[in-house]
């Protein structure tokens, strides 16, 4: 993994960082690179309330905010920013406003690497809209000044359309941090983990590969 000057991560939901990129982020932190995570919403529209319910629609964002802070701590992120948008509304916000927000983050932080979702290949409308805003902001910069842009994609057609990911990180050395990040988002991941604990204990290769390998597509501007 190349040493970066500054990493900026932009995702819309608490827990978006956990599965796909927390190992990569923890590695950058270990390398001494400052990492800023701008999380646009508090995942207010999460559906997992528990059976019997442990939370409700109005209380969930408070839980998810605490989980986000805990996850960032587990990864070692020094600069966590909660941007105050509302879950599932990013695509309906004013596009220029979103672009300008990303531009102002880039101008302030001068990142050498930005990590976000690949617009059009990230399934959730908030993911696509967040990635698109970052792409628009970077596109406006002179080509030579642009930071590298690594995108997360997982739509059913992403490999067919984009080809295989070109950046593959084996994050095994920091997978304890990654698992701590995933576990921090308890309200979202507890059900999933319930089925995985045994497999994790046995270090089942398929599960470990899913944890240890993080994939990115470098965004190529026209």
């Amino acid at each position, binding site marked *: 993994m190349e040493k970066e000057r500054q990493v900026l991560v932009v995702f819309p939901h608490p827990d978006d960082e956990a599965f796909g990129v927390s190992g990569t982020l923890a590695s950058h932190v270990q390398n001494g690179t400052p990492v800023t995570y701008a999380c646009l919403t508090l995942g207010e529209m999460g559906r*997992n*309330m528990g059976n019997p319910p442990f939370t409700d629609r109005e209380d969930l964002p408070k839980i998810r905010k605490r989980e986000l802070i805990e996850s960032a701590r587990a990864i070692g992120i020094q600069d966590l920013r909660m941007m105050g948008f509302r879950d599932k509304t990013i695509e309906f916000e004013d596009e220029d406003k979103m672009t300008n927000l990303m531009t102002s983050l880039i101008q302030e932080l001068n990142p050498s690497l930005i990590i976000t979702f690949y617009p059009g290949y990230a399934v959730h409308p908030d993911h696509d809209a967040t990635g698109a805003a970052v792409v628009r902001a970077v596109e406006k910069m002179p080509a030579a000044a642009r930071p590298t842009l690594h995108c997360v994609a997982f*739509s059913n057609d992403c490999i067919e359309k984009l080809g295989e990911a070109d950046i593959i990180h084996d994050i095994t050395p920091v997978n304890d941090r990654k698992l701590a990040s995933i576990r921090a988002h308890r309200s979202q991941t507890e059900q999933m983990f319930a089925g995985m604990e045994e497999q994790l204990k046995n270090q089942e290769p398929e599960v470990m590969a899913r944890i240890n390998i993080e994939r990115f597509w470098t965004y190529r501007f026209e």
Partner: protein
Amino acid sequence: MEVVDVQKVQGIINQFANQDVYIHLETTNGAYASHYDQTFFSAGAYIRNALVRYELGKITGNGPFRIGLKINLGWVYAEGITHFEVDEQGRLLLAGHDYNGKLAVALEISKTPFE
């Protein structure tokens, strides 16, 4: 939240009648429904802080329950309601959770705007 008690919920619905109230109403399958099952037609609707006044509000059904509010110029209704709660701010929170504990529908009534 607690499992719906029809009499209790009806009593609380009555307390909000004939005054300005803010409504949160949503239905959802989740943003990943069509990703995991491409034959699934995903649909949902969401409104937060609609300011209405209802003259009549009713909970019906044998569970999951239906709730209808007759507002000044129309109607608000939700079906699939399983749980309720009056939170610390005095708001009536109603929700329908599926068998895995995932929220499928929510109807909430408050005298002050939802944040």
